[in-house]
């Protein structure tokens, strides 16, 4: 092993441990780690910059711009109150529809923003109706991570996978949408049984309480709302068509963000404040760190090691699924997936070599077709694994923070009782899905 390889591994492992322990902000570590690789001459600067995947960065920036406007419009509060009114204060039906809405919003926007907007109004509605808020919060955590699994833009692991593999928005929707729907349905049924006592009826005059909320007043700026929803709809349509149009997802997202910047008429400084710069720089640093590993050939060695254990795509897929799920329950799934992607790419090349002598484009299609179960397993494991513990995903942490201000705070222990078994159930269902759809009938 060369000195460069040793440096790249040491820097990566130390950075990884520091990110996991969360004593220093992950963005600081990622930037410093990336810089170290260049300083120590593992990577030339040009290669370091080239390893940053600007499709991912562009997609994130575009969506952050869009979301920054949507989140000011009050639409989430409006929807939550409408749901409470339509459900006539029936707590199970409120939980059901709020969860479905959370899943849908998480699939199209980012999970953290979704729960940031939906959780406070849910807590308020629950307390006004004299129901304990924690069943709703648990359901929102689960729904948001499950919803995020369903699309390319739903969760950062999917953005990374989509960008690295050229799988399209539609591919994600067709392949991950059905299991996400199934898992959401099963999870909600389980929650109905688990929380039947908490959800058995409110003890206040629900009609009067609900009449005390006027959802139309929640909409702060109807014009801005209409414009942002129009742009968001076209952006989503753009995502659905991006492959057919030959556009990358980042182009679609930036187009949406750009149009809304002009059309919303708000101050550019204010709009750019909505961009989560720490997240973007975290991704950039991480790409350089992983780029270092690729450069020195460590991943080939690792891939060969994995392939010695098993050369069967089915066995490997299920291993990836469960390993990703358990790892993502406790760790940040972004660095995990970032490191897994190049590894899986090498494994799939070794599993399905170009024996038929196809040209490059045809081989890429063949390879993608064949290695799909591996990629979908990684996506399902990394996204759904986030449901396992209260620290499994950022959305969980945000909700736990909110719950601290209620009568029934969510803690690691009391969330674990619901989250972990339901996460295992969702991975079990995913295993069945992967087996049936990709392995038994291949």
């Amino acid at each position, binding site marked *: 092993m060369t000195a460069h390889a040793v440096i790249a591994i040491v820097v990566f492992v130390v950075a990884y441990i520091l990110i996991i322990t969360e004593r220093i902000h992950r963005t600081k570590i990622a930037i410093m780690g990336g810089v170290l690789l260049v300083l120590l001459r593992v990577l030339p600067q040009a290669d370091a910059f080239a390893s940053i995947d600007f499709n991912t960065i562009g997609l994130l920036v575009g969506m952050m711009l869009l979301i920054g406007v949507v989140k000011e419009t009050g639409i989430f509060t409006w929807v939550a*109150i409408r749901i409470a009114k339509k459900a006539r204060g029936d707590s199970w039906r409120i939980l059901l529809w709020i969860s479905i809405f959370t899943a849908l919003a998480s699939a199209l926007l980012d999970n953290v923003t979704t729960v940031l907007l939906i959780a406070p*109004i849910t807590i308020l509605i629950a307390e006004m109706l004299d129901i304990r808020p924690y069943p709703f919060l648990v359901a929102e955590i689960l729904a948001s991570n499950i919803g995020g699994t369903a699309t390319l833009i739903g969760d950062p692991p999917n953005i990374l996978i989509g960008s690295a593999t050229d799988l399209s928005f539609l591919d994600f929707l067709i392949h991950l949408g059905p299991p996400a729907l199934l898992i959401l349905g099963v999870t909600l049924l389980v929650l109905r049984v688990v929380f039947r006592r908490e959800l058995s009826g409110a*003890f206040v005059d629900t009609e*009067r309480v609900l009449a005390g909320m006027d959802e139309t007043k929640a909409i702060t700026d109807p014009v801005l709302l209409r414009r942002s929803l129009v742009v968001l709809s076209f952006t989503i349509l753009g995502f659905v068509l991006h492959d057919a149009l030959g556009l990358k997802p980042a182009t679609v997202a930036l187009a949406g963000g750009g149009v809304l910047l002009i059309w919303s008429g708000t101050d550019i400084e204010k709009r750019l404040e909505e961009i989560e710069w720490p997240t973007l720089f975290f991704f950039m640093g991480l790409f350089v760190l992983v780029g270092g590993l690729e450069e020195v050939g460590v991943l080939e060695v690792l891939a060969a090691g994995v392939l010695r254990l098993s050369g069967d795509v089915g066995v490997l897929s299920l291993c990836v699924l469960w390993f990703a799920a358990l790892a993502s329950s406790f760790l940040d799934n972004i660095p995990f997936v970032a490191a897994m992607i190049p590894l899986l790419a090498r494994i799939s090349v070794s599993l399905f070599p170009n024996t038929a002598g196809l040209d490059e484009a045809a081989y890429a299609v063949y390879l993608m077709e064949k290695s799909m179960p591996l990629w979908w397993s990684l996506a399902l494991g990394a996204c759904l694994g986030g449901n396992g513990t209260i620290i499994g995903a950022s959305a969980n942490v945000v909700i736990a923070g909110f719950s601290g201000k*209620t009568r029934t705070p969510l803690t690691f222990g009391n969330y674990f009782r619901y989250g972990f078994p339901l996460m295992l159930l969702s991975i079990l269902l995913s295993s069945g899905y992967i087996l049936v759809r990709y392995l038994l009938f291949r």
Partner: protein
Amino acid sequence: MDIRDCMKREFRFLAPDASLRDIARLFEETGEAVLPVREETGELAGVITIDDFLLIFLPAYIDLIRNIDFLHDFGAIEQHSFSIEESLFVAEDLMREEPAVLAENDSVMKAAAVLHRSGITRIPVVRDGRLVGMISKNDIVRALYGTEGQH
């Protein structure tokens, strides 16, 4: 002009162990928005603002919601009385410790500046840690425009 010329030497204060009921009564009787809390020894312990007092009636999560225009009332929350812990609150639990204070020989303009910075409307005046007076934004207006004689 010094503070000693315009501060109030007659003022009412709370003991550190004053109950919520005592605090409410004193707010009501004095009409003040800031009340000093004084130790038995005469030393200043802290101040209680009427905002801090009212805040304990509001549920903690209300500040999670930016826009509350859509709310007419708070439903079931309005019928909740204090929890047991909340009803045990005494002045000491509510007060701001180490509040901004002034000395008698500080100037009136400085008092205006400190009141502005501190964000409250009435500030204790102390001598060697002992509470000797209170000065409010109103006292300063009166001093500056001489509505009480002097100018």
